[in-house]
């Protein structure tokens, strides 16, 4: 119970972190430490944890939040992905940072689920290389390819900046991602440009705009940002009434969970 409460509070604490503060990996390691009770913690966190432990157990929630914790990503991978989504989606006047929007959880769930495991992907050999227009040709599941790319990107990052990606200052991280996206970062084994454009970037935009049931787009924040009203989308009358006019429902989108 206590662990669950702590995990929840620590997650909220991370949400309140000012923009551009500590690298993402620290957050991951702190959370692990809080649960395991080993690694050193920042004083504020120790206080929180101690307080929680000392108090009588509050009525427990029925279950931990489904959108916390990782299924596929290990600590270093999670640190990479959290840094990635926070660079690509910084906290600003439009949304909280990427982690707090659920983007890292979305990516983790996709990698752990059918997509990441190669569902609907033709995986029979032989394996040959060809033009990019003929598509993905590796005997790796998307999850494996994603993780091979993380390792390659981190190696390239260390060569450039003498530290792993999660430890870069936000400006450097953004610049490094741009280099990857434009195919300027080479790795002897992984085509990082294709890795980014065909796997990482689509997962990022899906994390932002998919139904929140998948863990991203938390609180429909991206739907509100653009004005997508979501469900139920029975617009027979709206089609005429709001043609060419602002649509009121766009400010209050509804998702699958709202109708489940």
């Amino acid at each position: 119970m206590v662990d669950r409460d702590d995990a929840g509070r620590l997650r909220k604490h991370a949400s309140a972190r000012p923009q551009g503060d500590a690298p993402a990996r620290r957050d991951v390691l702190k959370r692990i430490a809080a649960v395991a009770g080993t690694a050193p913690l920042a004083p504020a966190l120790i206080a929180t944890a101690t307080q929680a432990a000392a108090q009588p157990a509050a009525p427990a929630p029925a279950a931990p939040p489904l959108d916390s914790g990782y299924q596929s990503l290990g600590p270093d991978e999670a640190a990479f992905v959290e840094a990635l989504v926070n660079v690509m989606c910084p906290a600003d006047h439009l949304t909280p940072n990427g982690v707090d929007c659920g983007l890292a959880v979305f990516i983790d769930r996709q990698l752990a689920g059918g997509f990441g495991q190669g569902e609907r992907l033709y995986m029979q050999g032989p394996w040959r290389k060809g033009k990019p227009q003929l598509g993905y040709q590796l005997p790796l599941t998307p999850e494996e390819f994603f993780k091979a790319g993380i390792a390659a990107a981190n190696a390239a990052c260390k060569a450039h900046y003498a530290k792993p990606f999660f430890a870069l200052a936000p400006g450097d991280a953004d610049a490094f991602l741009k280099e990857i996206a434009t195919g300027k970062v080479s790795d002897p084994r992984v085509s990082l440009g294709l890795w980014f454009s065909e796997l990482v970037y689509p997962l990022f935009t899906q994390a932002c705009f998919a139904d929140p049931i998948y863990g991203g787009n938390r609180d429909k924040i991206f739907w509100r940002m653009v004005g997508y009203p979501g469900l139920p989308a029975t617009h027979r009358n709206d089609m005429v009434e709001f043609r060419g006019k602002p649509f009121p429902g766009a400010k209050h989108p509804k998702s699958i969970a709202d109708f489940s």
Partner: protein
Amino acid sequence: MATRLAKKTVVIVGGGLTAALVARELTGKGTDVLVLERGHDRRNGPESTLPNQRDELRWDVHAGLGQDWAVETYTVRHGTKDEALPARRLGAFLPGMGLGGAASHWNGFTWRWSEYDPELRTRFEGRYGKQAIPADLLIQDWGVTYAEMEPYHHLFEKLYGISGKAGNIKGALQPGGNPFEAPRRDEYPQPPLEPTEAGLIFKAACEKLGHKPFIAPSGNSSGAYTNPDGMRLAPCQYCGHCEKFICEAQAKATPETLLYPVLMGRPNFEIRLRCHVLGIDYDGQAKRATGVRYVDRVTGEEYEQPADVVVLCAFTMTNTRLLLMAGIGEPYDPATGAGVVGRNFCYQTNSAANVFVKDRWINPFLASGSTGVTIDEFNNDNFDHAGLGFLGGAGISANLTNGRPIGNRRVPPGTPQWGTQWKQANADWYAHSFSLQAQGTSYPHRENYLSLDPTWRDAYGQPLLRLTFDWRDNDVKMSAYCSQKINEIANAMDATVVAPATARKSPFDTRIYQSTHTTGGTPMGVDPHTSVVSRHLQHWDAENLFVVGASVFPHNAGYNPTGVLAALALRLGDDLTGYVERPRRL
């Protein structure tokens, strides 16, 4: 060992639109029909009910209704000298899977093609001279005329309750309709859908330029409708979840909404679901198909199903593959031009511009799958091609079909790919932008064809189909011309920003969705040296084997294929009724 089953009169491969139409005619006249469909009936699943029907990630991004590429995909190469590779997650097009087939997840565009389309070679040679068609374009007449197909178009539009505005009734042009429309006997069964704001902007710009825009004919029902079989459509909700989705409101005309429920009530109709056809049994001596073999995916057992008549109603690609695997008809050879099976494979040559209009509320989520406003001035041979250096053209439209936010956001050129500026651009333009599309002709080229892949196999151990396809010279020139026309219209819109259309160019990209309108491979015609089936869709090398679908089109027009393949299927149903009574070469 396969278990041999009791003989059926007619067995149909594939449970999609053409199968339902053929079966409607046959069972209505007393002939027993068996349909074998590899997928299942999805009418009560999450794909057909709220709230999960509205799941863009599952049904659109992950193509949850389409053919499972892990089971069967295609290999692709751009030319005969290239090595093909399997498209491991094909993005370009989306064959169906399940009752209704690709006609379940269609958008609803329902065209009659140009009156001259079935006689295209005659048309071009008559208008531009005998030398007009380059030697590498295999343009040929279909062996059927529009006038012969008109009664079947008429019936299909009634069955499907098509919404539209006639442009040409018995030769008299109708205001508000398409002036290039082939002559119809009467008005559409239902009035047209409501246009979108994008459609109205497009319409005004087209009128400024002197074009004649019209609301495209649609299988999304503009009102409540009861068809001649007593089946009902509900009014369209403009929910923006048509293509790649199943309509939960029974407002989109589909086989499983309008046709299969009637068939399933007939004692002489049977459909076996989750039954995957492995092949056609062919007696080469007698030149007859004796039946088909299939795996029941539920029991895991293999069966041999004898039949008097076999009809291939599978997706374009599968019709061709089944013939190639059975060795019925000579495979096409691009080196010599000999052989026929696999030839005339065509696609759809598209391009698009994005338009951003700051002070107009486009509200892209208020849309149906085919709420389009279109012009046909630059489609097919509706304009003079003398001196242009290409043949064909494109319908140009503002078809705003949805505002699903993963795949259908537009940001102005130069917007960063992520970060605050990216988010701001999405926030600024999501509700204030739309695209204009050219849906263009694809004419048969001697090097574009289908064959069996020598290397890769499907989950049943059978060879994958190989596409040899690329955008050839005629397509690229046509696309450049029509893209320029799109841009002229876009520039007449007082738009804040226009991201101009650029021509389709080689190489064909398998990763990006373009259109599910693949056509050809088993072309129809009057000459057995250039066609697989006759003008009655009867196989030249097996009198009791028939093929229908877009696979019989000798070329693809700047229109969606559904109207034409449906008319051909209804006509085949009539032909087969006569054939079953008195088997013969039709």
